[in-house]
């Protein structure tokens, strides 16, 4: 079936959250962190494979990573932040999608409208997750980046 061109559809528009609610922003960040984590996971499985090859192989791997300079620790810090956000937001998504919590019950809409699925419970969850993740990410940054003299 020939696909007709739809207006402003595709990968980039689907990831563009400007003008929308915070949950749409968290969708974009969840996707981006997921991609980062899959890329890191693949590289990490091959990296740890060198442990089985012996201490010399491991030393070479570590030396190769050191040659990246500050990029190594900054990269690890980004991955740490990705894992923290993706995991915490994932818990919120499981609460929503599997258990239906944070959604509220069906109501009789009364103007001015305020959807219960984006209500107080959902917002508290989103902002709590953001705050906790930022705190933990900052702490991870302290011990990952400290040696670089960045902080």
């Amino acid at each position: 079936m020939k696909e007709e061109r739809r207006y402003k559809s595709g990968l980039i528009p689907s990831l563009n959250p400007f003008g929308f609610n915070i949950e749409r922003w968290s969708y974009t960040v969840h996707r981006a962190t997921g991609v980062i984590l899959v890329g890191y996971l693949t590289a990490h499985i091959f990296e740890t494979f060198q442990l089985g090859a012996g201490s010399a192989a491991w030393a070479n791997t570590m030396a190769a990573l050191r040659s990246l300079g500050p990029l190594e620790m900054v990269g690890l810090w980004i991955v740490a932040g990705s894992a923290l956000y993706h995991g915490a937001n994932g818990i919120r998504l499981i609460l929503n999608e599997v258990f239906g919590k944070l959604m509220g019950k069906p109501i009789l809409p009364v103007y001015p409208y305020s959807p219960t699925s984006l209500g107080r419970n959902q917002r508290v969850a989103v902002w709590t997750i953001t705050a906790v993740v930022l705190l933990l990410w900052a702490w991870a940054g302290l011990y990952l980046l400290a040696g670089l003299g960045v902080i």
Partner: protein
Amino acid sequence: MGEPLEDRGNSLMKESWNMLLTYLTAAALVFVLTFHLLLQSPLVGKAFEDTLSFGVATGNLVYYRVVFGLLLVTAVIHGFNGVRVLVLEWLHPTKMGWLLNLVILVLMAFLLAVGTVTLVVVH
């Protein structure tokens, strides 16, 4: 009357089972990954740099082999299921959906094999 839509893509199993797998691996990952990250953190009494030394790294893998095995399985399944969903939405294959599933399964199997070899061989 309900109009049948065009070929909605092939699937090895009902999508709900696939998503259940994603949710279960996600829940398991929260615990095992936290454990892994704590092992690499200063909370275990070592600087981060020291946890990357050959002795400490292999020691962790050997001592907590089962946990790392679980981490490998859950991370690979969850991650590559996610990749499958992303590619499915982006490319929305109609006739070649089976090929996408096959490629993902092959990638999963390959990475699981590499990781398993590491866990078995390391001492």
